[in-house]
């Protein structure tokens, strides 16, 4: 059964794009499990069906998650894959590495696992792909010693991630790397010990380009923005003009709020600041000439997730602007999240993401009970139906005038 030939997989070593099959073959040289993965996968390619099953819970002392148990469904044929668990390790902010650290990962993983990894998982972790049950604790112990910690799995805060931010991007409106590091450390317990209705994710993007796709991929999206008006450098504008850059057609005409005007004669670009929605388009087009404003911070959005159960949701605005400049500024964010999770924990059903809980119970209830002030920025548009709930206790039973006074 464990035929060594892999004609189907070999097809995937052809072509220009780097081949994962080649990578498995490389790992197979030193790992029995990686070596067995090849014929198993070849079989899947032939039969067009997977051969994994979930099974017993595996883990590490003191933790409630971080390891995904996986077993082949034909262990008799693939004994080295009978147990083939995944270990998730928290990655450094922005996936920056020095080679020493990376080599440490390789060395420990060579010793205890398949030698196969995902750099990285789509939530962000370093994914160590394939090890036996009895290796899990030793793997953790050694990684821990080397300064690593487990990532999230199960109904907990999942591994956070962030864009490259101020590390290498001129658009960053807050320090994504630091915020992600600091806030992740704050919520270690929430991350390592599942206790919620379902998983919850946070992603940090430095600006509205949202290079972590946080709005689609995380229950809480922290997206950099600014509160004042973007800054136009008139000299740099003239340079773009001199280079023949089509400022009107590519920048002004595509501004969604039509708040940019370019005067071809004077080569001046002007903005009606209060009409700008901070979409980033003009800044993207002319990064040398247009920059975010000075009063920087982030918009906090809640609810993003994939399609299971109630449909995919994108996060929506709950706090239009929050300063995130110093560690002190992180505190209100942490408070906000604690309050939101607590509300969700109380109200959410099993396997219900926070966005679904809010959808089911209503934004109004969510806002009232978490104390978040309602603002029009939270919605694209107000409700189309007239089904307003009135708090019977707060109802002014005498009716109210337009000016708020009693009838």
């Amino acid at each position, binding site marked *: 059964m464990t035929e060594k030939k892999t004609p189907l997989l070999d097809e995937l070593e052809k072509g220009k794009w780097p081949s994962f099959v080649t990578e498995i073959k490389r790992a197979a040289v030193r790992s029995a499990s990686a070596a067995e993965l090849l014929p198993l996968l070849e079989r899947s390619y032939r039969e067009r069906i997977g051969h994994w099953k979930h099974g017993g819970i595996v883990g590490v002392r003191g933790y409630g998650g971080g390891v995904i148990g996986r077993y082949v469904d034909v262990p008799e044929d693939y004994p080295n894959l009978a147990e083939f668990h995944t270990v998730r390790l928290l990655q450094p902010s922005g996936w920056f590495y020095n080679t020493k650290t990376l080599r440490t990962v390789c060395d420990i993983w060579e010793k205890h696992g398949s030698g196969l990894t995902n750099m990285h998982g789509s939530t962000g972790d370093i994914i160590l792909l394939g090890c036996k049950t009895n290796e899990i604790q030793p793997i953790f112990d050694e990684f821990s010693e080397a300064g690593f910690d487990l990532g999230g799995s199960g109904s907990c805060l999942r591994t956070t991630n962030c864009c490259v931010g101020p590390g290498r991007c001129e658009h960053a409106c807050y320090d994504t790397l630091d915020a992600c590091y600091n806030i992740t450390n704050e919520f270690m317990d929430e991350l390592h010990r599942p206790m919620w209705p379902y998983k919850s994710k946070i992603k940090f993007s430095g600006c*509205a380009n*949202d290079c972590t796709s946080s*709005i689609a991929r995380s229950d809480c*999206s922290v*997206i950099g*923005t600014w*509160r004042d008006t973007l800054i136009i450098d008139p000299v740099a504008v003239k340079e773009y003009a001199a280079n023949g850059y089509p400022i009107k057609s590519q920048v002004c005409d595509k501004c*969604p*709020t039509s708040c940019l005007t370019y005067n071809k004669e004077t080569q001046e670009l002007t903005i009606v600041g*209060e*009409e*700008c*929605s*901070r*979409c980033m388009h003009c800044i993207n087009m002319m990064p040398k000439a247009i920059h975010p404003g000075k009063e920087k911070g982030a*918009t906090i*959005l809640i*609810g993003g997730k994939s399609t299971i159960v109630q*449909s995919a*949701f*994108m*996060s*929506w*605005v709950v706090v*239009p*602007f929050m300063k995130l400049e110093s560690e002190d500024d992180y505190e209100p964010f942490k408070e906000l999240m604690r309050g939101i999770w607590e509300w969700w924990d109380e109200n959410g059903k099993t396997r219900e993401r926070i966005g679904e809980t809010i*959808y089911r*119970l*209503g*934004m*109004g*209830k969510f*806002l*009232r009970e978490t104390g978040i002030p*309602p*603002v*029009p*920025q*939270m*919605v*694209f*548009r*107000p*409700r*189309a*139906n*007239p*089904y*307003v*709930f*009135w708090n*019977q206790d707060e*109802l002014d*039973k*005498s*009716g*109210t*005038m*337009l000016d708020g006074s009693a*009838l």
Partner: protein
Amino acid sequence: MAVVKAKLDQGPPNYKEMLPPIITENYGKWAYHEIPSPGVLKHVSESGAALFSVRVASPRLVSIDFIRDICVLADDYCDGFLRFTTRNNVEFLVSDEAKLNPLMDALKAKGYCIGGTGPSISNIVHTQGWIHCHTAATDASGVVKAVMDDLYEYFDTMKLPAKLKMGLACCLNMCGAAHCSDIAIVGVHRTPPVINHDVIRKGTEIPSLVASCPTGAIRPDPKNKSVKVNDDKCMYCGNCYTMSPGMKLNDARNDGLAILVGGKTSNARSAPSFSRMVIPFLPNTSPRWPEVVAAVRNIIEVWIANAQKGERIGEWVERVGWERFFSLTGIPFSDMLIDDYIFSRETFRTGAAFKY
């Protein structure tokens, strides 16, 4: 008692008998129209014939005297033909241009209001209210009268950015089709039904009553042979009252009116759209509802001041953003305006771009 034998299912009167000769002759051959003055439409046929329609406001709730009056005018100036519009205005159909000005003079002399064409406010589509309906949270005709008195300057002129189509419904059943109006005024209840167990025991099918509640707020109360309402779940929609008179919703101290904005039904430029709630409650201050009148006026004036030529209210708001609508009108925003019903998700701002 009449002794005639009724014919069943004979259908509506044949419209062909109701058309003035100029229409029969030029039926389907109209080439274009002009609006020579507010309230007057001139339709020109391929044949060159011209039909003038003079649009006159109606309170809709009219006496037979009113109808007889307009019949006299129609006989005098329109060969005995007239029509009503989808907004319940009267249109006098003048085929002889020489009779146009005399008709206008006669109308003005008798106090009829001519207008409602082009970029103007036409009649408000509305409903029964306290005149005839049991579920009404407010009166219909009275609010319409108060609002139209105030906005009259926009009825007999054509100085608005675009047409302004208003609707009024006296309860959430929304007979006035207020849900897709530029400005909608909707009667709302704010308290759960007060249950009359006797009435329910007598005439109500309990399972149907329970099933009628969209939020599942009603449970059977077998001991009582009646029902119970979970007040926290009730959104005062009135479905249960429609099912049973034992679930009275009307509440003099708490009924009132909500304002919705930005709907349209034409496909011109932009797709038809729903009206959106901007004021959840205004008091029921009969006889002239000054708060409603002021709220509507405010919205219209801000629209006039800010819209581009040709922009319906909803088109304007969608262009500048709803957050800007609230800042420009000064209307306070609240959690009540955020949808929490079935299609709420689509209204949430799933994006990081917005204005302050």
